[in-house]
């Protein structure tokens, strides 16, 4: 239902969508994020459940490309009145920043810090963009796929280049 409202009020903002096991997902470009968030907030999606990210190192990492970029920043919203959930994904290239939502949702403050800590995605306008879980001079960002699983040598590492599992994930 909310997706029709988004289509009506922000035409062409949604670049991709899918519905898997009842989870509605939309993909929006970074430029449209704030307008979309504003709309969601007015439509009753006032509970920002979660912010996280997913690393896709094989994807093209072109700055400014519409639906490309190495990372997906993933937001989960819940409408407390209708109990409708919505997942919003924003593709971001490595080194790009995302506008912060900390002004509208206080819960975004720490979630964005965590994403910054573990993925190295910066949030523009964040009041306190510091690491949350690891220490300030921790080398690298732990949840990136190229970060070694054993943690490498976090205390005297020369960059984090060691591939994990020879760059391949175990597959069935």
């Amino acid at each position: 239902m909310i997706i029709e409202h988004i289509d009506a009020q922000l035409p062409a903002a949604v670049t991709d969508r899918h519905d898997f096991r009842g989870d509605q997902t939309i993909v929006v470009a970074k430029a449209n994020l704030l307008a979309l968030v504003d709309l969601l907030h007015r439509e009753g999606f006032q509970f920002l459940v979660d912010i996280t990210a997913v690393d896709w190192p094989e994807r093209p990492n072109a700055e400014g490309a519409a639906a490309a970029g190495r990372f997906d920043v993933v937001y989960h919203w819940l409408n407390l009145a209708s109990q409708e959930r919505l997942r919003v994904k924003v593709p971001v290239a490595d080194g790009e920043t995302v506008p912060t939502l900390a002004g509208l949702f206080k819960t975004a403050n720490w979630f964005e810090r965590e994403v910054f800590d573990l993925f190295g995605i910066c949030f523009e306008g964040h009041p306190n963009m510091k690491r949350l879980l690891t220490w300030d001079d921790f080398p690298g960002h732990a949840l990136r796929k190229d970060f070694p699983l054993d943690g490498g040598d976090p205390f005297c590492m020369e960059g984090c280049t060691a591939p994990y599992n020879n760059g391949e994930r175990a597959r069935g």
Partner: protein
Amino acid sequence: MDSIAISRQQNSPATGPRSEGSTGSSSATRHASDGDHMIVNLGPSHPTTHGTLRIILELEGETILKATPEMGYLHRGVEKLGESLSYQQFIPLTDRLNYCSSIMNNVGYTCAVEKLLGIEIPKRAQQIRVLVSELARIADHIVCVGVNAVDIGAFTAFLYLFRQRETVYDLFEMAAGQRLHTSFTRIGGLFRDIPEGFVPLCERFLVECEASVDECERLLTHNPIWHDRTKGIGAISPEDAVNYGYSGPCLRAAGVPQDLRKAQPYLGYETYDFDIPVGTTGDVFDRYLVRMEEMRQSLRIIRQVLDRLEPGPVNVDDPKIALPPKEKVYTRMESLIHHFKLIMHGMEMPVGEVYSATEAANGELGFYIVSDGGKNPYRIRVRPPCLPIFSSFHDQVKGCLIADAVAVLGAMNIIAGELDR
């Protein structure tokens, strides 16, 4: 108070707390002086933090001006580890999230994987999951309320309640073989059926726990000292609570009747008869009342589960998901092949992503799983309920006393294992 390190202000600017080791020249306990400010370091190892977390309190006299929470001391990289483990192997890691009610984490995680697979588990497995979840909720609330009372100075209530928690852990030991790190659920069902003797002990627990909850309420609910220490402390408006991402008892204490067991039922919760207690002010006293009432409601649910528990299988009848029974593995070739395939190659997972949330004792425990069809999850994200709650700590204690900060921290029920993952 002996583990609180107090140092007088120094004439150097405040720096990031984590940088103290690297820079050496300035430490977190120093602060630019204007007036009588003092920095008190609560934690990382302090009796009231219940886990390793650190709060840097900036005080003027005894009034808190600023509270800066510091976390990550228990960060084990659970989400990173999950990417290298099979779906089944991740279950023991979920035990270590909220270790006061580990069975609920098991249930939440396996529900997420089952949603990804698109399967429904047998009725008896659902009922037993509800049964152990509610037992775990009671155990978790006992820890939260009891320890909160101890922190504030009411030791007796803790002892009355902890006897019941022992019984809950005895029940878990009967069911899963483990008291704390249960790993009781499996994808598609349970590790095993509950043993003989579980139901009678559970019946006895229902009676005794009810009496203990009443006893505890007689000790605390109308106790004027308890009122003085808890009423109005940590009050929060429903709008702020939602904005901060509160969930669970803390959100309901603020007056928002959001409970996933009612709002988005899973495991057949819609068939049970129970109420959602809701507070008005969101302060420590309301959170206490909500937790006490939730324990009673959980007892009600357990009673209903015991009444309708019917014999039946506890795992899905699908050899591509659940392991076949051992005696068949030893006697039948088909079962042996299924066993081998499941252990060596894992399940066939669809490509896709799901977010599944359950109502854990602390609030909405969510698992976001991205699958690329491989044996391991491509990305697994745990949405811990207490992280957003803890992020409001500064707002909650600003202008209060240190003793109030301790009360608020206890009522938030911050579990460091879940907070830091």
